[in-house]
């Protein structure tokens, strides 16, 4: 039966283990690399970028220049050799969108988020640390992949003398642009995942936002402001930032990045407000 002694006179003195932002960063780093699905997703993005960087230049490079639709002797038959070697980054952007979603929505679906928020009850520090770990990891790992894809792809194209060089006008900017867009899309996924708390729903939403909605927007007539909406829409803002050849109907590099950053920031802010204020 229960003891009937009065409250013990012992005064418990805990060791104060204070939560720090550095600690939260370390924690998120451990979390990121200790879930298999996250590591596999990162690897898939890496393979997609490097794989396409090799395959597409081979496929295009093996065709005679006349079949590529460009004037014979022109730079890669009218194609942008930089963009050609970085086609994989487009596919990878879908993968990192999903990655951004699962690192946060996975916590909500498994209940891990309760542990995270009891360990750091102010909550926003957890989200900020998660965003930094995600951004840095995507930038470094997929940055390596993007440069690898560029160099291998250009080496393949150079067999026909159609490869580009980093020192060519706008090439380095386009290569770095691809890396930045990957980081931004991963963060957008994180914001949406924090907002929706459901992996499947958030992944479908962001994939639709990246690939389906831009197609639907093409049907918008000019009288409805179609061209402007297309220019400023999330997935279209970086069209010129990731390529050397510029398309006049889309925003320029600087303006495009700025508008893209606003989209990402808004999604992150919505996710942060949701994480901070809603019950878990």
């Amino acid at each position, binding site marked *: 039966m229960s003891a009937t002694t009065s409250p*013990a006179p012992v005064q418990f003195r805990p060791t104060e283990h204070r939560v720090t932002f550095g600690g939260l960063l370390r924690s998120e780093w451990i979390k990121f690399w*200790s879930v298999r699905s996250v590591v596999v997703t990162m690897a898939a993005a890496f393979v997609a970028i490097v794989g396409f960087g090799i395959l597409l230049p081979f496929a295009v490079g093996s065709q005679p220049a006349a079949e590529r639709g460009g004037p014979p002797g022109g730079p890669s038959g009218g194609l942008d050799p930089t963009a050609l070697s970085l086609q994989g980054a487009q596919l990878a952007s879908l993968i990192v969108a999903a990655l951004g979603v699962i690192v946060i929505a*996975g916590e909500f679906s498994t209940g891990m988020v309760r542990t995270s928020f*009891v360990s750091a009850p102010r909550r926003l520090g957890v989200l900020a640390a998660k965003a930094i770990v995600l951004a840095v990891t995507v930038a470094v790992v997929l940055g390596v992949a993007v440069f690898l894809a560029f160099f291998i792809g250009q080496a393949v194209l150079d067999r026909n003398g159609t490869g580009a060089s980093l020192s060519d006008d706008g090439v380095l900017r386009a290569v770095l642009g691809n890396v930045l867009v990957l980081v931004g899309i991963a963060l957008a996924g994180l914001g949406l995942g924090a907002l929706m708390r459901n992996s499947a729903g958030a992944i479908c939403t962001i994939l639709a936002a990246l690939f389906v909605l831009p197609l639907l927007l093409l049907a918008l007539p000019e009288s409805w402001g179609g061209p402007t909406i297309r220019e400023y829409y999330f997935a279209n803002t970086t069209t010129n930032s990731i390529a050397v050849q510029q398309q006049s109907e889309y925003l320029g590099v600087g303006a495009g990045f700025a508008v893209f950053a606003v989209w990402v920031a808004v999604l992150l802010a919505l996710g942060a407000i949701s994480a901070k204020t809603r019950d878990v």
Partner: protein
Amino acid sequence: MIEAVGLRKVYGSKVAVEDLSFTVRPGIVTGFLGPNGSGKSTTMRMVVGLDRPTAGRVLVDGKPFAQAVAPLSTIGALLDAKAVHTGRSAFRHLQAMAATAGIPKSRVEEVVDLVGLREVARKRAGGFSLGMGQRLGIASALLGDPSTVMFDEPVNGLDPDGILWIRHLMKDLAREGRAVFVSSHLMSEMALTAEHLVVIGRGRLIADESVQSFIDRVHPRGVTVRSPQVQQLTDVVRGAGGSITPTGDGAFEVVGLTAEQIGDAARDAGVALHELTTVRASLEEAFMELTAGSLEYQAQGTGPAVAPPAPNQLSRTAEEVAR
């Protein structure tokens, strides 16, 4: 130490907790008792700030938990629902938690050994049994060496050894001067571990008192008597003003007399007694009596004195094994 004042939580149109005030003091085990769905888990989530109270407030060591500078050392919580990523190993889970507050790896090893998870610590938590999951939850709760420990239904899924282990653990934690707050829908479990009780039904406070005074609220029901001299015993009891009825297994239940009165009268009449036991209301019965009408999922037409729901009986069996 936990102080709740006027806590209220509403989900949509459903009131889960209503005007709940109580204090969990250091140095003792405080039981948090109520039927399933009475608001225990909701209250515990509000204590650690996972759910925001609709009204009222709850302080942990004098501050809202959200303002704690060392949250893992302030309160260690095992909540009812799983709070672990199924794809991560137990060890990495604890390491990630420890990292937030710079808790050394040696402490992670320590709690892994303390809860007996050494052999499976490197395996994915998703494959854990309910009992292993509970042990991991307890390891998480103890990681920061907290001054308050809060366990939601900790014996759920534990085997008899585990149940015995956690009972001792909670008493030891209290003896070290920590506040221990443990919820259960098992009155018998509380009788074995808690000194103080906070009882709720339908989200409202029903009792906030010591276990003993809670039991004392329900009066003794009668005295069980066994004797080889059935006729003489019946005469003695009736002569002394009591009523006697056979219980069917050779014993008799006497109402209207105390055990002392029966014993004295039997001695005077030269009747041999083989058993003389006061039938006390169990904590279970006291609870059923007090929470009658506040049972969330009471079956239609079920009276207050009807047997407790099936889970109770199961766990009592488990407990008997544990003893």
